[in-house]
């Protein structure tokens, strides 16, 4: 269940978009006890100047990304735009049965995109 990215306009700027990962959808619901799914989110959008670098309230863009975007605006054929990627992630915990019928609780880092940035 993903939010569609809109092309053009301010909404096309690099930012976190909603993506719900359902364990039923990926076929893991028989052994994942909880959660049923989680809000993983994803990054999408343009990293072009000037609006998106740095994003309002968002993480500052890397110096390299700023220069790359500047270079792109001056000479589009020289380099592409920076990439819109996760800048801050948070963990989730998953409760599941393993193949030995153990009930396992594991804590996984970097599973949820909280913020995106141009890199």
């Amino acid at each position, binding site marked *: 269940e993903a939010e569609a990215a809109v092309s053009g306009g301010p909404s096309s700027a690099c930012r976190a978009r909603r993506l719900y990962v359902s364990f039923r959808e*990926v*076929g*893991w619901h*028989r*052994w994942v*006890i*909880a*959660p049923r799914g*989680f*809000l993983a989110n994803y990054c999408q959008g343009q990293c072009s100047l000037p609006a998106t670098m740095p994003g309002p309230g968002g993480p500052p863009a890397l110096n390299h990304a700023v220069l790359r975007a500047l270079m792109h605006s001056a000479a589009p054929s020289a380099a592409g735009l920076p990439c819109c990627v996760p800048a*801050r992630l*948070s*963990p*989730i*915990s*998953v*409760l*599941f*049965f*393993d*193949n*030995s*019928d*153990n*009930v*396992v*609780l*594991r*804590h*996984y*880092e*970097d599973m*949820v995109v*909280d913020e995106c940035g141009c890199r």
Partner: protein
Amino acid sequence: ARARMAPGPAAALLQALGLRDAPQGAPKHRPVPPLMWRLFRRRDPQEARAKLRWTPPGATLRPCHVEELGVAGNIVRHIPDRGVRARSPEPTSAAGQCPEWTVVFDLSAVDPAELPSQARLELRFEAAEAKAGAAGGWELRVAWAVEGVGVGPVLLRQVVAALETPVRAELLGAAWARNASAPRSLRLALALRPRAPGACARLAEASLLLVTLDPRLCHPLARPRR
């Protein structure tokens, strides 16, 4: 056997998540222990956020630490006993001899890279006998069970006041060294005797709560921005 992988594109992700292959499904007649639910609800940031409505960014729980158990770790396993058939079927109080039980825990799913921080043996006894109790309490003895030989060296002795709640015994440091990887399996001989003459108790259920820390899943804390 370790190279067995689930087919398809999910295999690499499963491996990254610390699973050798996709489990087959929920086992029959295996309820999720309430403690595991409690730990999940406490650990899960999305669940916590839903309850608190709003959580400031970065205000997550202490990483790689199981708060409720007070130990370091990022993996908690509830491992059932596989030695049910080895138990003595009936308790006997004749001549003060109570039955002994052999419990077996399969720890093969634990990766050698994981560092155990708690290995808690949990024993539940039949309700009627647990309620009846023993005036002077009980003595629990945990020893190695050696196949074909019987009982091996004693690992720990513990005085138990009552049997109504689960009886717990910490095995880490006794069954294996604190800084060592978990063994592939654990085979224990248990004996519970009333300290004063009285009836024997009957073991209803044994399990092992194993907490480990996988350093590969534990990212170093972010340094403050200069």
